[in-house]
Structure formats: structure tokens, C-alpha cells
């Protein structure tokens, strides 16, 4: 599809440059779109991105076969095709993952990723056919395993970083006050130029203007009042429950 789009774009560009440069016997875009519309699975014409690579002499369409390796990994094992339920084991727990080496975790991540891709393909195909997906809990198990793997890897990274540098966070940041007077944790971003050359960054205001200062105190008062109200509400509900359900002192 993307090749068809680029071929249409190149055709548009060609039309622009027709007055300037003559591009002779140019049938490539047409043949490219036709090739895709015929939907030959493993035959495609070699299309280039930009028109200036196409010479006026060697302009015959070149056909190569697609790489056929590995597409079967997007699909389940053939014995599971057409089954209503597929048996699957328990997901990996964080405790089990913590005893594995980094190399094992790295390999496991890709195994889980390929399994997830296969299950997502299956889910999409089931939606297309308007049939129920066989055993959708497999997808949840894989996602949970991947999340736990990520947790274990971040734990190890955090430990190493704390040991070597003493930094609690992987990404630098600091407490800043925004234009509305609210203090928040500002997470730094990576830039190629320093801040004093970054005009867009200089326009951002990390201070509260003088007319906003009185509102900071008022919002703090509001927050404290709401906190006290919440505590009082909790206490009142506990007292009400104690009157409705009095604690039994002597067992009947």
C-alpha cells in the first residue's frame, strides 16, 4: 500500500517537473499500482522512493520474490487450527523471573513478544470472521508475563544505579512551579541544544507571575479544608456504623 502511495506521489512530482526535465517513457507508477491490485503474494515490482533514480534507459519493471521465512510464526501450531479452546499454562511470576539471568530474560522477552503477535493476529482474524477467539486468556497471560519481566529488569537497573550513582530516578527531573502557582515534578527531556539557545523552551514560564501569588495561598487553604472535611466525614461514618452495629462485648 505504501509503495502505491509513493508511486502516486512520484507521479505528482513528475507532473510538476515535466516542464523542467523530460522524463521519457515513464510507465513505472502505473505498473506498480497494477501489480499491487493483482495481489500476487510473493511477486512485487521493485519500486524506488525518488524519481531521479529511474533512468530513461533502464526502466523495465524488475520482479523479485518476497522473503518467505518466518511468516508461520504469526500463526499458531497447525494442530491448534480450528480448535475452540487451546490449553495454556500459567503466566510467569515475578519470583520465577528474578532467578533468571539477563540473557535468559532477553530471550524470553522476544519469545513472549512473538507469542503476543500471534495471539493478536488470531484475535483480529476472529473479529474479521465474526467468531469468538479461542482461549482469549492466553493474551492476558502473555501481557502479564511481559509486564512482570519489565518490572524485574527495572528493579535490577534501579539497584545498580543506586549502588553506582545514588540516583533514585533513571530520568532526571526537579520540582518546579508552573504559571498557575502549582508545584509539580518536572521531568527533563533530552535536547540537542542548550536551554539558552532553545527559543521555545525560553517561552515556557516556570515561575508564577506576581498576580497569581495570592491564589497559591487560597488553593492551599482549600486543599487543607478538603482534607479536614474528608477526615471528619470518615470519623462521622465510623461513629454512625458503631451506633448501628455496636461491638458485642460478651459472646452470647
Amino acid at each position, binding site marked *: 500500500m505504501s509503495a502505491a502511495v509513493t508511486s502516486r506521489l512520484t507521479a505528482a512530482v513528475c507532473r510538476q517537473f515535466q516542464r523542467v526535465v523530460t522524463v521519457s517513457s515513464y510507465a513505472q507508477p502505473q505498473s506498480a499500482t497494477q501489480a499491487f491490485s493483482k495481489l500476487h503474494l510473493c511477486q512485487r515490482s521493485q519500486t524506488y522512493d525518488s524519481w531521479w533514480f529511474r533512468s530513461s534507459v533502464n526502466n523495465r519493471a524488475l520482479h523479485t520474490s518476497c522473503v518467505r521465512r518466518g511468516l508461520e510464526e504469526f500463526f499458531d*501450531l497447525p494442530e491448534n487450527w480450528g480448535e475452540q479452546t487451546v*490449553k*495454556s*499454562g500459567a503466566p*510467569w511470576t515475578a519470583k*520465577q523471573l*528474578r*532467578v*533468571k*539471568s*539477563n*540473557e*535468559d*530474560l*532477553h530471550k524470553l522477552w522476544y519469545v513472549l513478544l512473538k*507469542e503476543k503477535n500471534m495471539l493478536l493476529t488470531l484475535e483480529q482474524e476472529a473479529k474479521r470472521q465474526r467468531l469468538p477467539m479461542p482461549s482469549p*486468556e492466553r493474551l492476558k497471560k502473555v501481557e502479564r508475563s511481559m509486564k512482570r519481566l519489565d518490572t524485574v*529488569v527495572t528493579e*535490577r*537497573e534501579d539497584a*545498580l544505579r543506586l*549502588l*553506582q550513582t545514588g540516583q533514585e530516578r533513571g530520568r*532526571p527531573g526537579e520540582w518546579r512551579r508552573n504559571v498557575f502557582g502549582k508545584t509539580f515534578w518536572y521531568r*527533563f*527531556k*533530552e*535536547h*540537542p*541544544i*542548550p*536551554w539558552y539557545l532553545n527559543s521555545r*523552551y525560553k517561552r515556557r514560564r516556570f515561575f508564577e507571575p506576581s498576580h497569581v501569588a495570592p491564589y497559591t495561598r487560597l488553593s492551599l487553604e482549600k486543599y487543607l479544608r478538603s482534607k479536614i472535611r474528608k477526615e471528619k466525614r470518615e470519623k462521622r461514618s*465510623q461513629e*454512625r*456504623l458503631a451506633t*448501628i*452495629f455496636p461491638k458485642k462485648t460478651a*459472646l452470647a
Partner: protein
Amino acid sequence: MRLTALLSMAAKAAFPRDYRYGTNRPWTIAAQRLNPPGKTRRKVFVEPIANEDWHVLKGDTVEILSGKDKGKQGKVAQVFRRRSWVILEGLNTHYRYIGRSGDYRGTYIASEAPLLLKDVTLVDPTDRKPTDIEWRYTEEGERVRVSVRTGRIIPKPVFQRRDGIIPQQWKDGTKDTSPEDTLQKTYTTSLKTLEEEVMEKMNIWEDKSPRNSYWY
């Protein structure tokens, strides 16, 4: 990041603070019919019981103390901690029609009504009489339910998984890792990050130095 947070918020089922939870799961059509979005009902007060003090578990045998089926013993099918409810199999039933459409009035079935926790007690398995329960610690340090009257330990009921799998009778499939491989320890502590270790193992050499970047 904000988009994913928004999507997760939309995916999570949100209910009002004074939503009255019933026997139907809140996302089912029956629950939506009973509790449509605009409806507010009078608040039900539930006796506050801490999670560790809860003594009735799913699968226990209990006896009913008050109500239509007073004195009968039954197995617990479902427990609702939020409302201190217990649903027993086949007891405290009322009858209703289910699956009616058009002229067909539907099947006549018995549906169980929930019982409050204070209306049921656990039954001592040895003499099959109702008792009061206390949480005590054994000599090994295990926390168990002990009947006050006889002093015997009431064992926890066998937990049956919802998908019907019995862990002792499980046979691994082609894509499952065997228990020995799962528990095998391959981790050695080292001062290398995952990326460095993997690059070493795969013989990837990175000679390029990263560009100077500014963090702010």
C-alpha cells in the same frame, strides 16, 4: 502518555460512589437494568469486618440461623465481602422464570437469595453442629480457624479454580516451560546492566560515542 492514561481510564469500568452492588456483576445487562446510570438507592450499611477477620470461605459448610431455611446446612457457592453476603447452593431459594421471549414464559428455576454473614455460622466437621469461630495460631505459627465450642481446627476448603484446572494433574503443552527449567537459577549478580551483558554475549561492539545532549 496522556492518551494511554485516557484510554486506560475509559477501559476501566467506573461506578458512582453510592452504587448499590448486587448479586449480578456490575457490567452485565441484568445489573444495568437494575441499576441504570441515573438511579440512586438508599445507602445500605454493612458491618465493617476487617479482611483478616473474615471466616467464611467459598466451599465451606455453613448452617443458617434465621430465615426461611433455618437450621439447614449447605455449601457456600459465592461470597460477597462488600455487602457481607453469602450465597449457599440450593438454600434460601425463591422461584422465577428465566429466558422468556414473546409468548414463551421461560424456564421455572430456583434462584438462591444471599444471606447476611450474621445469619450463618460455620459447622464443625467432626460433630456437624454449628459453632462460633475464632482465628488462632497453631504451634507452627499458621493462622487457622478454631471452633470455640470444641476447640478443633476447621480446615480450609479445597480451592477450585474457575477454569477447572487441577494443578496436580496438569500436563505441560509444547509451549509451556517445565517446572525444573522454570525454577532453575541462572542469575549471577554482576555490575553490568542487561544491555551490556547481552551485547557481550552477542559480540556486539559499540565504538561510537553518544552525541552531546542536554537535559532540561
